[in-house]
C-alpha cells in the first residue's frame, strides 16, 4: 500500500495517461494529485510539495502540452525537469583550501551518523583524491564517541586527534589544527557531538568552533529517513552556521528520502555525499541529476557504470557494459561477471539502478545475500557446457543432476533458471532503450517506458 516508491506511483499514472492521444486538464489534475501524494508519502515537506505541484500544474496545463504530439511525455518531462531543478543542478566538489589543511566540520542531530560518516569521508578523500586526512574527536558528550572514532581511525590507519572527554570541544578543535599543520595533514575533519538545532548552548559551541578554526566546509549530516522536520533542522543549522553542504546518510535503506528534496529546497545548499551502507567505503558522491532520474524510475545506469570503473579497470568495465547491454550472454558469462559484479557492492543496489527494474515482476522483491551467490555459483558450476550455453535444454533429470552436484535443491535450480530468464529480459529492455535513443535522435526527449 503506502510503500510504493515514488517511481512506481508516478509510473502508474503515466501508464494511464500514456494510452491517451490527448491530455486534458482533468488528466493533469489527476496526475499532479498523484505527484503530490507520492511526494508527501516520501516525506517531502508539504510546503515544498505545494510549490512543486503548483509549478508542474502551471507548466503542464499550459501550451507545452497542447502543442505536443505525445502529451504524456510532455507531462513527465515537466515533472522531471522541475524535480531536477529542485534537486539542484550539477554535482558539487569538495573544497580545497589555498593553504592546507582544508578544514571540514561535521554537524547534525544525534544519531544521524556523523562519526561513521567522518570515517567514510576520510577514506574517500584518501582513496579518491589521494589526500592525507586527520580525524578530530570533538564529541565529548556521548559515551564512547571518541572511542568509536579512534576505532575507525585504526581500521583506516589514520591519525585521530583527541584530548579525552574533559576538555572543551573548542580547545580540541584549535589544538587539532596546530597538530595537523605540524604533521602535514592536508585535511582535518572535525567530528562534533550530535545536538538539537534548538539547543542554544550547544549551538553556541559550534559557532565558537567555527569562528576559531574557520572551516572550509561545514557539512550537515542528515538521516535520509527524516520526516517533515528535516526542513526545520536544516534551516536552523544553516541560519546559525552557514552550511556549505549536506551529507545524506542511510540512503541504502528503503526510505524514499524525500528529506533530500526538502533540504535542498529550503537551504539551497548542495547535497554532496550519500551514505550507502555500513562499510567504510560506502560513501558516494551525490548526483542530483541522477537522483531525480532514479525517482522517476529511469534507473541510474551512469552510477552503475561508475561503480564498475571504481572496482575493475576501464577495459573490463567497457566489456561489462557491452555485455550487459547486448543481452546475449550465457550462464558462463553470468558466472564470470558475478565475481566482478560482486566487487561492485550489494546486488540489490545494482538492480535498483537499472531502469525499470523496480517495475519488473519477480525482480521487484528479489533479495540477495552473499551466501546465496555462492549457492548460485555452485549450481552453475554443476551445469554442463551445453546447459550453460543454452538453458532451454534443461529438463527434470538434468535439474536433478545439477541439484545433486551443487548440493542444492531442485527448486533452487528452478529459481535460478527463472531469475536468469528475468535478467535477460531486463537486459533486452535496456538494449531497446539504447536503440530507441539512437533511433529518435534529434527529437530530444524519450523514455524507456513509453
Amino acid at each position: 500500500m503506502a510503500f510504493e516508491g515514488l517511481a512506481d506511483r508516478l509510473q502508474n499514472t503515466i501508464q494511464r495517461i500514456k494510452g491517451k492521444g490527448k491530455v486534458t486538464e482533468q488528466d493533469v489534475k489527476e496526475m499532479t494529485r498523484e505527484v503530490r501524494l507520492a511526494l508527501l508519502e516520501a516525506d517531502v515537506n508539504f510546503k515544498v510539495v505545494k510549490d512543486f505541484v503548483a509549478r508542474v500544474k502551471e507548466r503542464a496545463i499550459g501550451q507545452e502540452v497542447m502543442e505536443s504530439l505525445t502529451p504524456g511525455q510532455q507531462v513527465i518531462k515537466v515533472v522531471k525537469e522541475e524535480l531536477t531543478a529542485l534537486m539542484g543542478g550539477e554535482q558539487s566538489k569538495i573544497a580545497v583550501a589555498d593553504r592546507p589543511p582544508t578544514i571540514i566540520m561535521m554537524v547534525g542531530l544525534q544519531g544521524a551518523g556523523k562519526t561513521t560518516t567522518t570515517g567514510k569521508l576520510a577514506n574517500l578523500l584518501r582513496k579518491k583524491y589521494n589526500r592525507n586526512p586527520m580525524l578530530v574527536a570533538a564529541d565529548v558528550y556521548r559515551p564512547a564517541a571518541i572511542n568509536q572514532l579512534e576505532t575507525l581511525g585504526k581500521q583506516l590507519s589514520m591519525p585521530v586527534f583527541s584530548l579525552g572527554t574533559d576538555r572543551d570541544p573548542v580547545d580540541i578543535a584549535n589544538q587539532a589544527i596546530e597538530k595537523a599543520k605540524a604533521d602535514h595533514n592536508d585535511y582535518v575533519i572535525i567530528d562534533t557531538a550530535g545536538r538539537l538545532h534548538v539547543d542554544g548552548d550547544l549551538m553556541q559551541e559550534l559557532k565558537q568552533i567555527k569562528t576559531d578554526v574557520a572551516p572550509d566546509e561545514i557539512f550537515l549530516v542528515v538521516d535520509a529517513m527524516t520526516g517533515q522536520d528535516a526542513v526545520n533542522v536544516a534551516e536552523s543549522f544553516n541560519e546559525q552556521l552557514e552550511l556549505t553542504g549536506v551529507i545524506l546518510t542511510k540512503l541504502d535503506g528503503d526510505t524514499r528520502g524525500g528529506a533530500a528534496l526538502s533540504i535542498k529546497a529550503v537551504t539551497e545548499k548542495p547535497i554532496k555525499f550519500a551514505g550507502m551502507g555500513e562499510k567504510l567505503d560506502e560513501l558516494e558522491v551525490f548526483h542530483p541529476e541522477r537522483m531525480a532520474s532514479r525517482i522517476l524510475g529511469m534507473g541510474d545506469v551512469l552510477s552503475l557504470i561508475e561503480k564498475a570503473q571504481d572496482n575493475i579497470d576501464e577495459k573490463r568495465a567497457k566489456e561489462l557494459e557491452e555485455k550487459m547491454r547486448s543481452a546475449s550472454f550465457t550462464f558462463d558469462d553470468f558466472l564470470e561477471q558475478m565475481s566482478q559484479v560482486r566487487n561492485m557492492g550489494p546486488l540489490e543496489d545494482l538492480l535498483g539502478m537499472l531502469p525499470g527494474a523496480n517495475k519488473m515482476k519477480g525482480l521487484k522483491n528479489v533479495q540477495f545475500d552473499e551466501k546465496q551467490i555462492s549457492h548460485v555459483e555452485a549450481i552453475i558450476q554443476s551445469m554442463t557446457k551445453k546447459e550453460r550455453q543454452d538453458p532451454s535444454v534443461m529438463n527434470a533429470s538434468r535439474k536433478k543432476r545439477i541439484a545433486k552436484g551443487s548440493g542444492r535443491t531442485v527448486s533452487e535450480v528452478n529459481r535460478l533458471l527463472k531469475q536468469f530468464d528475468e535478467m535477460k529480459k531486463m537486459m533486452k529492455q535496456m538494449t531497446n532503450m539504447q536503440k530507441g535513443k539512437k533511433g529518435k535522435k534529434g527529437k530530444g526527449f524519450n523514455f524507456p517506458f513509453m
Partner: protein
Amino acid sequence: MSFFKKLKEKFTGNDEKEEVSDKYKEGLAKTRGSFSGKINDLIARYRKVDEDFFEDLEEILISADVGMATVMDLIDELKMEVKRQNIKDSEQVREVISEKLVEIYYGDETAQEVEQLNLKDGELSVVLFVGVNGVGKTTTIGKLAHKLTQEGKKVVLAAGDTFRAGAIEQLEIWGERVGVEVIKHSAGSDPAAVIYDGVQAAKSRQADVLLCDTAGRLQNKVNLMNELSKVKRVIEREIPGAPHEVLLVLDATTGQNAMSQAKTFQEATDVTGIVLTKLDGTAKGGIVLAIRNELHIPVKFVGLGEKMTDLQSFDAQAFVYGLFSDMLEEVNE
C-alpha cells in the same frame, strides 16, 4: 462534561499525576507549541468550516508526520462529525479535532496495561532492543537500566552490538554510570553468542531483568534481519516465554519510514512495544498516532531528553494532555 474538562480533571488535584504531566508538558513544549499553535491559528483564520479549512487542517497533520493514510481517515471522520453535529463555526470544531485525535490514539485498546512493561516477578525477564541505526538503542538501555535499578531490580546488560565501532564501550560506560554488570564479547563476535552468555550470566546472578542491546540495522537488509531473528530464537530456547518484551526503538524525527521499520521488525522479532526517542527535539509526535492506528503496537516509553532520568513510561493521556495543554488552559479561562 466537555472532553477537555474531563482530561483536565484527570491531571489536576493529584500530585503524582501532576508531576507526570508536568514532565510531559516540559518535554513536549516544542511539539505542543507548534502543533496546537497551528490548530489555533487555523481556527482563528477560518470562521466557517469549509473545504479550505479541511485542506489546511490536512496540511497541519501531515506536517506533524501523521502519515497520509491516517490523515485521510481522520479528515473523513471529522467531516462526518461536523455534518452530524451540524457545526458551522470553526471554534466549535476545535474540540472535535482533539477528541478524534485521542480516539485514534487509543483505538480499541484503552487498557492502561498495554503500556506497562511486561516483567515477571521473582524470575528473570528478558528485554530485547531492536531498531535501525542511530535511533538511540544503547542510550535507551542505559536509561531503562537506571530506571529499573531505582525500582530496586537487579539488572544485567548484554552488549549485543558487536558491529558498530565503540558500541560495546558505550554500553560499558552506561553500565558504570548506573552500576550494573555488562556481559560482552570482543567487537566483531557473534551477537547471538553474546546474548546467550548474557542469559546464562543473568540466570546465575539471579538478576531480575536482562536488557539486550543489538546492532542497528536497516530493515531492508535481509541477512541482518535474519541475524536478529536468530538472536531472538536463542533467547526463546534458553528461557521459555522469553523475551518478555521486544522493544523497537524509533527516532521521533523519522518520517513515514517509521511505519516500514515497525512492520519489518515486527515480522522478524514480534515487536511488543515501541520506545519513541528524541521526542524533545521534534515538533512532531504524529508518527505515534499513525503507528497506534495502523499497527496496534503500543508505545511503552518516550525519550524526552538527554539525562539519565529522561526516559518516561508512556502515558497516552499525559501525552495528549501535554499536546493540548495550551488549548486546555484556554478552555479553563
